[in-house]
């Protein structure tokens, strides 16, 4: 029986990444008063080796903070991220250095995430350079060329500069940078959101190819359910800092259970004029992050909320194997 709060894969085999009760708060000052914002609250999930886990949610749900915490760009207040038996937040400096080689990130903005003054080759080789992994210049060059080929670009790109490349090409470079040397886990933070549809398709295919070829485990963060569904094996839906539902991709798409997931699915504009979104699926505004509801964060907008929901936060519980939902009423 899986322990509540932990993901599916804990049952099957030892997960490669085990996130436990990750919580990040920060305080803001508005109109003279201090507010505490729960950017991430008690987020727990596991990632099996070779699995692609999609984390989906709208802006402010905390998915980016979760991703950044896993690569230690953000420090949570509570919680652990266990990789290779160690909690990455408690790791010694040299252990941390090794960890950084194994858990890597692909960033959202293909323009901003590459230093405009460094050549493509330098950017791709940067991780290797920092950790002194290349035996010689020739070795470095060879590995850079290889990696570029893996992402579908010619070796000649190594001497070019970011401004000469299109957005799709830059994003491929971002991916190349994340896979040299081969990592175990890749956190992809909205990697295709800034790309055109046709380029998006190419990059998604690339990620899927690389995942198969290299046996990568990927956490794919996005606001687009369609994209997440395309590439993920499992999906976790986040709302206001919490995970509200997790399931296998097919299940979540075909039979969403949590009211918010259902709203997300319904609100997604389908490219089929025969299926038009029913007016009034959602009448309330998304709440401000400064609100700290005691109960379920979605209660104010939920169509099946009761007074119990407003005062009691629902835990993430397992409904059936491979299905977890945080709702009192399902």
């Amino acid at each position: 029986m899986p322990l509540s709060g932990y993901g599916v894969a804990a049952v099957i085999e030892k997960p490669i990444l085990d996130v436990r009760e990750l919580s990040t708060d920060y305080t803001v000052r508005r109109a003279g008063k201090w507010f505490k914002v729960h950017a991430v609250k008690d987020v727990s999930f596991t990632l099996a080796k070779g699995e692609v886990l999609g984390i989906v949610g709208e802006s402010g749900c905390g998915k980016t903070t979760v991703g950044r915490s896993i690569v230690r760009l953000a420090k949570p207040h509570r919680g652990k991220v266990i990789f290779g038996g160690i909690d990455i937040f408690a790791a010694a400096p040299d252990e941390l250095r090794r960890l950084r080689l194994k858990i890597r990130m692909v960033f959202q903005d293909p323009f901003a995430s590459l230093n405009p003054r460094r050549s493509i080759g330098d950017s791709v080789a940067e991780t290797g350079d920092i950790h002194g992994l290349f035996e010689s210049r020739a070795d470095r060059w060879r590995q850079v060329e290889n990696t570029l080929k893996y992402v579908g670009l010619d070796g000649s790109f190594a001497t070019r500069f970011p401004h000469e490349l299109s957005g799709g090409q830059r994003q491929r470079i971002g991916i190349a940078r994340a896979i040299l040397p081969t990592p175990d886990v890749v956190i992809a933070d909205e990697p295709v959101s800034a790309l055109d549809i046709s380029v998006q398709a190419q990059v998604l295919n690339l990620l899927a190819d690389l995942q198969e070829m290299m046996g990568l485990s990927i956490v794919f963060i996005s606001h687009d359910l369609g994209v997440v569904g395309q590439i993920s094996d499992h999906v976790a839906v986040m709302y206001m800092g919490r995970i509200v539902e997790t399931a296998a991709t097919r299940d979540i798409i075909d039979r969403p259970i949590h009211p918010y997931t259902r709203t997300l699915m319904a609100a997604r504009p389908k490219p089929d004029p025969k299926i038009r979104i029913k007016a009034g699926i959602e009448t309330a505004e998304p709440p401000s992050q400064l609100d700290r509801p005691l109960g379920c964060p979605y209660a104010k907008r939920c169509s099946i909320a009761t007074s119990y929901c407003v005062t009691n936060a629902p835990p993430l519980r397992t409904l059936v194997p491979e299905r977890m939902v945080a709702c009192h009423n399902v």
Partner: protein
Amino acid sequence: MLRVSDLSVSIGTSADFVDIVSSVSFEIGKGEVLGLVGESGCGKSMTSLAVMGLLADSGPWLRTGCAKLEGFDVIRLPPYRRVEFGHGGIAMIFQEPMSSLNPVMRIGEQIEEAIWVHEKIAGATRARRARELLDMVRIPDASVQLGAYPHQLSGGMRQRVMIAIALACKPQVLIADEPTTALDVTVQAQILSLLRELCDSLGLSILFITHDLGVVAQLVDRVAVMYAGRIVETAVVAQLFERPAHPYTEALMACLPDPAHYSRRLTTIAGHAAKPGEVTKGCAFAPRCRKVAEICVTNSVPYEQLSGDHRALCRFPDTGLQP
């Protein structure tokens, strides 16, 4: 009824120019929503800027074409006549409401400012009208929100304010340039249904620019697909999705992830999007087209008129008839 004819926007000198928008023509009827769809660099935003007369003095310039609203060419109206016309009867909203709104002015003031430019009415009447506009765009607690600053509102609310400001001059046509791209999907759904409502109740014509085919399917009546500065297909929306005629439209739709049946890999379009001036002879899509023939590369492409309203810029459009 807005009729845009043979619009071309170019860069370079008049002797040596490159078209970034090439001979674009379309019409929008009263109360109709036309979607202008394309990927980045196809010229859709540039087209709308040209129609609004917002092309900067330096940079891309209007080479040919006109945009006739009720018979008057609004592009070439001098600024003072545009105001008389109610700003040419065309209003525009943009993608990022935060940059379009003045951060240090209250919402009410900004709406009143828009009203004042077009109708010199007294203060109290203006304030009332501002409230009415906020109600029209379904902002709750309109009287309270009039005193709010932009940063106090959410993204969806700000976009509604933008729409209210656009409606202040009682336009006949609203040009919306990717207004929901920066919004969450649930908020997007609300804005789209609001636009549909306004269209039906006010008889507003909308030119809706987007790259999102899903949004197009939701909102618009007719679609114009752009590629490399040209309109490559126009059709009624149902027709476009059921049977896209132009190979580019077809290929674009095939790229979309389909939740109904996720395939292992997505179909892609070979090559890269054509840059302005890259393809000088023949069809701009030829290098990437699966149906390309010799004649596509050597000769310029004519418009093929398919059934009724359906047109495609292709020699071999998919008409559904067996060859």
